[in-house]
């Protein structure tokens, strides 16, 4: 039973949503349905990210139901995803998480988008003992409450900065000055702080560290100031739109450091198309990229097949947010199949054991609930193509220095 979409279906479903309120009894009969709750930001500032997560969920749902649902012991479970739009407002996300637990009586939960909403909603899940899979929370602060029900797909932000710092320290010992320009927002800011730590650890002097306001369109002045510090390595954090602007405005001022690292924009085709030749040799890191090639024992079988299925359904290559939507689905499915049922304690125990071999990455969760079983690869745009340059075993290209003017 895939997700409802047409208007008539939606009104039917809206009525269905009211059912639990009116007559709790009905819930029991449909026990062989697995209900997963997913608050999503479908409108408001996070609408693009919310839509991507939903696409990931849907692709996984299609595969599972195509193969007759989830095998839990001797029963085949039909999977139903119950989602509500929290309008990119964190309190509404918490409110809806509560509603999914108390009203819709979902068995498991996918977290809202982003670290802030995930942290706020995880408190509700913990209190109700509902396993809660966070697809897009990468800040350590989200996992510092010691919750047992919280599991994060992404590794900590430091795993994005350390590999690149190692690479530069090894290959370019003369790199001595780094400039960091960060978007003043939860995830980009904590990422920038990690880069600062990684640089300092290796004796690289941080000559410039500034934050730009959300919604800034003109970075000319900030970059002019950055240029005066003559950095060898420049790190820019933000979302794809920010990074398009900054890359172009850097070119407008002929700023061309030895190494230019921008995090999470360059791995997208959209970014490469937008900046054209200026994409050359820009390095980035990300938890997932279509160019990866993991073998997996999930519904997709391998990264390549996942990418292919995604392209067939949505007409474009998946980015790491879309992929993470499908990944949390796959991990939950494997945990339920191992536990042989939907009992929350059993599934939670399986999740804690980890060892999930997915198309996304080999995933196991650390004591805090945050994944710690894989290193997000480092990528570089070479001749308009995304190449993996780290870790060694996945590499498809050599690290190049110098950035196009």
């Amino acid at each position, binding site marked *: 039973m895939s997700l409802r979409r047409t208007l008539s279906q939606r009104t039917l479903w809206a009525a269905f949503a009211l059912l639990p309120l009116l007559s709790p009894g009905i819930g029991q009969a449909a026990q062989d349905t697995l209900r997963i709750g997913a608050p999503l930001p479908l409108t408001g500032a996070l609408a693009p990210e919310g839509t991507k997560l939903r696409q990931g969920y849907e692709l996984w749902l299609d595969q599972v139901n195509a193969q007759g649902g989830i095998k839990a012991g001797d029963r085949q479970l039909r999977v139903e995803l119950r989602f509500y739009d929290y309008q990119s407002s964190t309190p509404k996300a918490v409110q809806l998480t509560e509603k999914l637990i108390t009203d819709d009586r979902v068995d498991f939960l996918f977290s809202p988008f982003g670290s802030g909403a995930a942290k706020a909603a995880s408190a509700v899940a913990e209190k109700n003992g509902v396993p809660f899979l966070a697809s897009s929370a990468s800040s350590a602060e989200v996992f510092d409450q010691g919750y047992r029900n919280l599991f994060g797909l992404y590794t900590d932000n430091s795993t994005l900065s350390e590999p690149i710092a190692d690479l530069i320290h090894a290959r370019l010992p003369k790199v001595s000055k780094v400039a960091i320009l960060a978007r003043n927002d939860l995830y980009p800011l904590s990422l920038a702080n990690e880069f600062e730590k990684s640089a300092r650890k290796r004796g690289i002097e941080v000559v410039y560290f500034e934050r730009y306001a959300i919604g800034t369109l003109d970075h000319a*002045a900030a970059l002019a100031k950055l240029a005066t510090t003559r950095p060898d390595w420049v790190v820019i954090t933000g979302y794809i739109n920010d990074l398009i602007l900054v890359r172009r405005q850097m070119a407008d001022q002929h700023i061309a450091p030895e190494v230019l690292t921008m995090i999470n924009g360059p791995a997208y085709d959209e970014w490469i198309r937008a900046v054209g030749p200026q994409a050359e040799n820009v390095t980035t890191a990300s938890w997932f990229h279509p160019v990866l090639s993991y073998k997996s024992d999930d519904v997709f079988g391998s990264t390549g097949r996942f990418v292919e299925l995604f392209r067939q359904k949505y007409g474009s290559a998946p980015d790491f947010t879309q992929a993470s939507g499908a990944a949390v689905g796959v991990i939950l499915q494997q945990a339920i199949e191992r536990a042989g049922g939907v009992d929350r304690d059993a599934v939670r125990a399986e999740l804690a054991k980890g060892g999930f071999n997915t198309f996304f990455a080999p995933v196991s969760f650390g004591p805090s609930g945050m994944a710690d079983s894989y290193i997000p690869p480092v990528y570089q745009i070479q001749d308009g193509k995304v190449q993996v340059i780290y870790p060694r075993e996945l590499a498809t290209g050599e690290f190049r220095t110098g950035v196009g003017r």
Partner: protein
Amino acid sequence: MTYLQVLINGLALGGLYACIAAGFSLVWGVLNIINLLHGSLIVLGAYLAYFAHQAWGISPFVFAPAAGLALFLPAFLIQRTILERVMGKPVLATLILTFGLNLFLDNAMLYGFKADFRKVIFDPPLGLLDLGGVLLPLDRFYATVAGLALVLAVWALLRTTHFGRAIVAVRMDREAAALMGIEVPRTYALAFALGAFMAGAAGSLLSGIFPISPVASSLYLGKAFVICVLGGLGSLPGVIAGGFALGLIESFGTLALGPELALTVAFVLLILLLMFRPTGLLGRQGFQ
């Protein structure tokens, strides 16, 4: 050298900023309405230019007047049907009404165009002017020149054509204008439509430089506020002064205080101006 570069960066946006605020200032000055719809109209103009560029390869800087014209008639109708009923009503009614309209248009675009940012990509890229080490990107140069030209054109229109004189007359004294045989409601609608024309044109120019998305509409509205109060209400020369002033303030403000304060500096300035000099740099006493 940095100061020269920062100066050029500030000036490079002046004309564009003037164009962004011109329509807003006109509607505020003539209809005494704060048009919260202005930001979304700019974004709509940007989308029109984006699609025109995708479909026919027209440069957004050339397409600006067309984008403006596309909004002229719809705006005229919106004024005649909806805004006409709140003319002269207290501030609260007009502000909340345009807030509702903005919420509607903003979400209609979000629903229609989706929220992800789109960018007009020039192939081959426009490049930049190298003025002895100081660099001036061509896209900003064209946008500012075109913006300035548009504002001056509208200014000329107000001073020479009959329709323009009618708008100025209504702005000065609504009752007297009516006595002179000027059909006031129609003039209000035309003024509002002209405001929308400027917004559409500004949007088109913007799409040549910056990526566009419905979520950016409040940013442009904020800038229009500051420029309007900075330069003085309802006077187009005031808007030009305000546009360049804001460009310089943001540019040097960022240099001195860091990028994240750029937005704050502009808003704090707005409050100080409102407290001590509501008439702005050039403008006459605002209309109450």
